[in-house]
């Protein structure tokens, strides 16, 4: 915990650089994230939340600036801003689990098969992967839908299958982009319970949200606000010791 898990220094991201429709989604971002706790990125639509997540999650590379990531296995800090795609992929699959804005399950495959997919390149035995995937589905209470094609699942089930898929390789960091969009309050509450459990297990959760129910949730440690591609605020969340300390001693 001495070195932060992730450090961004003066990171700028321009989509379609050099083309007519070039669009700078992030300007000069400085941010560092500890390897634990729940961090919520909030901000209006188009403010660059998803872009920031994809940079942090090694899905894309910054146009300028540096990103350092602490390798969860070797604890070695590496500059990932210029890593070749192959290494980025290897690093990504040990470090991050992703829940995408629209969940992005693969249609036609069953829930179980979807959950198993991220484990395929790792070279474990099929039974081992199935056992693990089933365990995750059980933990998220969708094991009874394991053999169902994902297009037949309800919104909440899809979300939980997506979380199981993100977690199947047991990553230390969960990245979730708008995981609660289109969900009712009950499902949001359940989701936050899951997040709280992950947090208690010592994982780091980084998610974006428009939803006050999310960032006001008791398990959130930190809320970072983005506006027009810049950091407009960085406050401790309800679960943060700083805020609890502040609130507990008036």
């Amino acid at each position, binding site marked *: 915990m001495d070195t932060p898990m992730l450090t961004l220094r003066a990171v700028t991201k321009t989509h379609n650089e050099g083309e007519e429709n070039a669009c700078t989604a992030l300007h000069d971002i400085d941010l560092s994230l500890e390897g634990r706790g729940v961090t919520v990125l909030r901000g209006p639509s188009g403010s660059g939340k998803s872009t920031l997540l994809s940079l942090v999650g090694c899905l894309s590379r910054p146009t300028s600036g540096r990103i350092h990531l602490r390798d969860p296995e070797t604890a070695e800090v590496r500059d990932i801003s210029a890593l070749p795609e192959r290494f980025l992929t290897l690093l990504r699959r040990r470090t991050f689990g992703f829940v995408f804005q629209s969940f992005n399950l693969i249609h036609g495959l069953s829930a179980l098969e979807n959950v198993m997919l991220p484990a395929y390149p790792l070279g474990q035995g099929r039974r081992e992967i199935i056992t693990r995937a089933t365990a995750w589905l059980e933990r998220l209470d969708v094991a*009874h839908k*394991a053999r169902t094609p994902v297009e037949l699942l309800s919104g909440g089930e899809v979300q939980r299958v997506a979380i199981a898929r993100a977690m199947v390789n047991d990553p230390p960091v969960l990245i979730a982009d708008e995981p609660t969009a289109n969900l009712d309050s009950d499902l949001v509450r359940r989701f936050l319970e899951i997040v709280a459990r992950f947090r208690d297990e010592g994982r780091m959760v980084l998610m974006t949200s428009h939803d006050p129910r999310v960032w006001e949730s008791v398990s959130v440690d930190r809320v970072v606000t983005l506006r027009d591609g810049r950091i407009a605020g960085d406050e401790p969340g309800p679960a943060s010791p700083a805020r609890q300390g502040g609130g507990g001693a008036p």
Partner: protein
Amino acid sequence: MVFPVARRDGSARSGSLSRSPFPPNRAATALVLLAAGLAAVLGTVLDAAFRRGEGETGRGTARMVADLGLTDLALFTEARYTRNPSLADLHTPFQDHPLALDHFPSGSLIGPPTPWGQASLTKGEVPE
């Protein structure tokens, strides 16, 4: 346990599906099928070898060819140059005109005879 109801409900429904926690391994099925196919290919090789071994017929045929003094296969019997292509005189397929279409379809399969000539006797890989 967070959703016991949903879960019991679900396992009741999934009762119609296979109870094994491990869904059938399609890849294994495919690989087994592939291996079976390869084994069958090997089988054809063995079958060919076996039937060639027992095939006295070939030698019998060669004997008949020698005894009767035959020179050709009786594959196409409709015309001189298809019945005995190796003895057909060089002009037979083009009796009417060198570019005339053949009367018999098999003529187009057989192709014009090639004058090998004496010079070609010394080379060539045809088995004795």
